[in-house]
């Protein structure tokens, strides 16, 4: 910004939750700046059932927890960190625009699509912001993107209580992934049903977006 004298400014959000801060994964610099990088691939490369989990900020640790939970259900999940949905979305829009105006040339591929090329299974994004934010990259995700977010007024309560209320904690990420796989026919539906019960989720709870 100041070295190149760019007319830009930044909006960063910082949080008050304390947890061990990971070291920067090797090779992540470009992805951090562009808005997406693989944070923690699943060690299990052979599994038939796969999931791609996207998390940012305070919800990233929830997504990492979901990665472990999913392992128990035989799902190998990769965790992606998303520092900026808006950067991803803007870049992809710019690439699409170029493609639109240059039909005769080899289409370019947006950064987010390149990152996710070949990724399979369930795609779940969990955010501490509105669902609309992760949804802004859905077009370039190579599968149906399920978004979890904090639409609604919320309550005053503990972090744990709020994450249950808004349906963005590790349990909901897990159920969302399983449900997505079931929808694709990769899992029997009753597995999801059972998991909802096992994880202590009340399916009749109030809709956080409207309550």
């Amino acid at each position, binding site marked *: 910004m100041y070295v190149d004298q760019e007319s830009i400014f930044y909006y960063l959000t910082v949080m008050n939750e304390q947890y061990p801060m990971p070291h920067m994964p090797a090779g992540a610099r470009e992805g951090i700046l562009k808005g997406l990088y693989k944070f923690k691939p699943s060690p299990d490369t052979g599994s038939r059932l796969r999931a791609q989990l996207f998390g940012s900020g305070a919800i990233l640790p929830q997504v990492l927890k979901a990665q472990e939970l999913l392992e128990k259900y035989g799902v190998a999940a990769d965790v992606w960190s998303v520092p900026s949905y808006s950067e991803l979305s803007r870049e992809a829009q710019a690439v699409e625009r170029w493609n639109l105006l240059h039909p005769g040339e080899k289409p370019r591929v947006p950064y987010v699509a390149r990152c996710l090329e070949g990724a399979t299974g369930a795609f779940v994004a969990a955010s501490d912001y509105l669902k609309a934010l992760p949804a802004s990259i859905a077009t370039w995700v190579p599968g149906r993107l399920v978004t979890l977010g904090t639409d609604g*007024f919320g309550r*005053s*309560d503990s972090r744990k209580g709020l994450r249950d209320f808004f349906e963005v904690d590790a349990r909901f990420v897990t159920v969302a992934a399983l449900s997505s796989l079931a929808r694709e026919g990769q899992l029997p539906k009753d597995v999801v049903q059972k998991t909802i019960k096992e994880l202590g989720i009340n399916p009749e709870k109030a809709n956080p977006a409207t309550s």
Partner: protein
Amino acid sequence: MRNLAPRESSELEALETREWLESLDYVLHASGPARVGRLLKELSSHARQKGVQLPFTANTPYINTIAPEDEVPLPGSVEIQRRIKSLVRWNALAMVVRANRVEEGIGGHISTYASAAALYEVGFNHFFRARNEDHDGDVIYFQGHASPGIYARAFLEGRLSADQLANFRRELMPGGGLSSYPHPWLMPDFWEFPTVSMGLSPLMAIYQARFTRYLEDRGLKKKSDAKVWAFLGDGETDEPEALGAITLASREKLDNLIFVINCNLQRLDGPVRGNGQIIQELEAAFRGAGWNVIKTIWGREWDPLLANDRDGLLVKRMGEVVDGQYQKYAVETGAYVREHFWGVDPRLIEMVKHLSDDQLKKLSLGGHDPQKVYNAYRAAIQHKGAPTVILARTIKGYGLGESGEGKNITHQQKKMNEDELRRFRSRFGIPVADADIAQAPFYKPADDSPEIQYLRERRRALGGYLPQRSVTVGPIKVGGLESLFEEFYEGTDGRSASTTMVFVRMLSKLLRDKEIGDLIVPIVPDEARTFGMEALFRQVGIYSHVGQLYEPVDMSTLLYYKEASDGQILEEGMTEAGSMSSFIAAGTAYALHGINTIPFFIFYSMFGFQRIGDLIWAAADARTRGFLIGGTSGRTTLAGEGLQHQDGNSHVLAYPVPNLKA
């Protein structure tokens, strides 16, 4: 005098001053205050003629506005009221401390209510009238982070249970809890106004007071002597919204409006005006704007000292100490205060030589003295022709002792150890045994105790409990609406029209509707012509309490600028924030007044959500009804206007508001 040694000159000056003051006292006794006023005016004009430049000052000395001899005693048993206040203090504190033990980091505030306890208790026991069949009820905007005290009182009143208190900030607990701050969305039977985005509540209160007048002037509601009270923090007044509309209140002579600013001289991080005096700064701003300003700075113990201040030395000293230093006195010993406040002049020291250090330390402040507060409120409700602001000086974290009183960290304090709890308990005489103190139990005396009896009797006399939100109004009648809209279903038959034009036509028809026409409240921020709405000026008139005192330049035209005391349009001038506040007042009148007014706020779309998004969020929380109309829609329809006007944003900005249909 010019060539005298400084010491001699200052003594001579003091003598001369004394002579003048004595003459003035003589005139005051012989001919009364009005004569003194005229005399001072003469003197000042004479001095000016002689070339003396008198700097403008909107300030009065740093003492109470109400003289002790004009005070009446606090009604009722002073002791019982003190006991009740202590109990509220204790339960408010216990609520926050316990919540943070159960859930580290859950938050909450102790020190704000601790400084404001007397301000609220005097209101609850003597002034705040509840809404019932006989009376409209006063409208109270509670300072958001004082909520623990308001809950604690409702607990003593028997309106909230100990379980609810125990679940402060834990609304998801089985059986429910209490919301952090006043949120009608979350506690729709309790809170009426969302106030915790600082600065919005003073603004909304002003427009609320004005909207009440509007309803009365238009005959939609009986005239009433109900007041709008807004309780604010001194730090809160740094928000531009807080003071941004104060001239509207005085221009409209809103003597139904009372601000109480808790001047504890501190905000979150530290002093509000360490190097100045926030009370004097606010006094000048409000007096300059035409408000009735009542300063309640010193408690009764100061009265005899001031009565003996024949040379004006004490008043001068009071006026020269800056707030940061006053805060230091609050945390220091009496000996320190003697040395540093009084010690600057041997004559001042002399004035307090009969007081021990302990007594010096305990000289109380106006905002902690129920009698001073009572008299300020009494004067405020009696004042005619202008709104009143009460500037009440207090100590932040009052009663927390060394653990928090007056400290810079006190705003965020939410924990107290056993020792601190015990000291607080003893200071305020709460009957909790040593063995139990660690649990910080809530305490409520028996129903037949004098405290509970008194508190109930007072609320009965004042019409019931508050805060309380209730919706009693029924649905509007919409019988004629289907036919009203019929023509619009037809399209325009090949003719061109803009949706803005169509909307204005609809609005104009709605205004004529027999059943709901009167309920429509069009609100515009100096933008009616932009949207082709000027025909409405004539059709329903622009609201002005005094009507139209001039002959409008366009009187001869069909669509002249018509102001009327029963005018229906709120032409707010260029204030989107003010217009939105009117929108909130009109859109919540169904709950507050039992009147289904339907506001239409028509604004330049880029100056809506971008400019006043937080007020829109507050409107959502307040369960406001009505229609926000943003014109001109889209970034390309408003040709030629450029990046500040063309709106491609507002729908995205509207998207997060859960109960807003956009």
